[in-house]
């Protein structure tokens, strides 16, 4: 392999001078300004900053839910500016994403939600049940497998979303406030699940506005403030 190829294989995320401006009618809202950083394979990074700092915006650029106004975004070695529809779907299948608002399919049970992401990758039926329940057990939700999203508490919905994100054993886990609605004990449990996944080889980018949690995790911390990356330490 050429040195460049090695870097491609090792760098999971790379942002270069990324700006994102939302336009709402005549108003321009700069959500990200000149953000550059990269994340290597195997890292566990915490993305923190107060509410409205741009954490969700940044994650949405990483799974190509939106495109930057300026700058470059590379994820898993792919330039997201030039990625076509089919490749976007393929990229998303190799990611695990915990959305801040869970985004569970409303008409399906928790189990169905998790099985769905395995079905669309053509996983054999027998494996689906086993793997879905493994993921549910990991987040402590196996008893709620047959519940519909509307019947879940917010914390349960977030854990279901985490189960869905990890069930495919992704190369990169993007978690947006996965502990946002959990009490201390439950938050610690969810953190343990994410640490297990990380130890299994998954690179993790974990967004939270809870500064103490970031400190406690004690790993690399990226701090956003008003859309700017003001600190990158650890």
């Amino acid at each position, binding site marked *: 392999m050429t040195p460049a190829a090695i870097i491609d294989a090792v760098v999971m995320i790379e942002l270069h001078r990324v700006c994102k401006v939302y336009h709402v009618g005549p108003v321009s809202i700069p959500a990200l300004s000149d953000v550059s950083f990269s994340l290597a394979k195997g890292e566990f990074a915490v993305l923190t900053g107060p509410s409205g700092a741009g954490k969700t915006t940044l994650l949405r650029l990483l*799974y190509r*839910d939106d495109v930057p106004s300026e700058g470059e975004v590379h994820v898993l070695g792919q330039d997201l500016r030039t990625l*076509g*529809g*089919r490749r*976007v*779907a*393929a*990229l*998303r*299948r*190799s*990611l695990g*994403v915990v*959305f801040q608002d869970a*985004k*569970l*399919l*409303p*008409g399906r049970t928790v189990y169905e939600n998790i099985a*769905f*992401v395995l*079905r*669309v*990758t*053509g996983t054999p*039926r027998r494996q689906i049940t086993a793997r879905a329940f493994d993921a549910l057990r990991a987040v402590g939700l196996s008893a709620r497998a047959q519940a519909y999203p509307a019947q879940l508490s917010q914390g349960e919905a977030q854990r279901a979303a985490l189960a*869905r994100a990890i069930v495919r054993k992704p190369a990169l886990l993007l978690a947006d406030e996965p502990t946002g609605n959990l009490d201390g004990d439950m938050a610690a449990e969810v953190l343990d699940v994410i640490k297990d996944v990380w130890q299994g080889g998954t690179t993790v980018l974990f967004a939270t506005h809870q500064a103490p949690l970031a400190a406690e995790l004690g790993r690399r911390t990226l701090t956003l403030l008003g859309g700017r990356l003001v600190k990158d330490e650890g």
Partner: protein
Amino acid sequence: MFGFLLGEALRDLRRAGRVAVSAVVLITLSLAALGGFWMLSANLGRAVSQWRDRVRIIVYLKRDPADVEGVLRRVREWPEVASAAFVGRAEALSSLKRVLGKDAGIVDQLAANPLQSSIEVRPSAAGATPEGARALIERLATLPETEEVSGGIEWVERLAQWQRLLAMVGLGVGSLLALAAILTVTTSTTLVLHARRHETEIMRLVGAPEVAIRLPLLLQGMIQGLLGALIAMGLLAAAYRAAAPWFAPLLERLVGLPEVAFLAAPAVVALIAAGAVLGALGGLLALRPAGHGGAR
């Protein structure tokens, strides 16, 4: 994977609800109309071809023709003639007696045999068209031995015209209803698209490929079409069973058809396939505009 897609399609079908039911009803009506007229027309068609086979042109010969064998030989060589047979005067008289049955006694009271000898000509395929038959009759009339030519196939042609008319009406009514059916499937599919757009967005975010998102919609349209087609075939079969015993004697007397037949197997298969195609077309029409968007 197909089981999964089918499951998704059934879920979409449930979501389409009452509009899907209307679509199925319309497809049923259109295919039942198409199939019904098709069946009638096919039966008339059988009557027509049976009558074409039975058409005879009778050439009455002048009294004491010189060379009957020679005439027969010449006529048989014409391409528009399949066969020709001589019927002598005595033969004609005995067949008249047969026809008269118990009244045959009148014939015996005649002093002499009043009947003429004749040649019975069976036209070939070329001679069984309206123009072919007219030309054949004219040609037979010019033979020096001919006294008079009788016969023709005009009424068989009228029957054939009726048959074509029935087929056209069936096709017209069927197509109109089919158009309405396609639009209804389109409406039901659009409704499903709308109802599940939130879900579709989530599916895209978790990396579901477009087939997993769109194929079920196409499949639910096809299922509507197939359901409609199967119901239509069931209705036709039931109607056939109920009506055939009543129709059969009527058709027998009117056009001499010994039995009424149901649609042939290929026709049934074609109609069922048409149902699936109608449904798929309806689904495609609904999916088409979104097809330019791609994943986002």
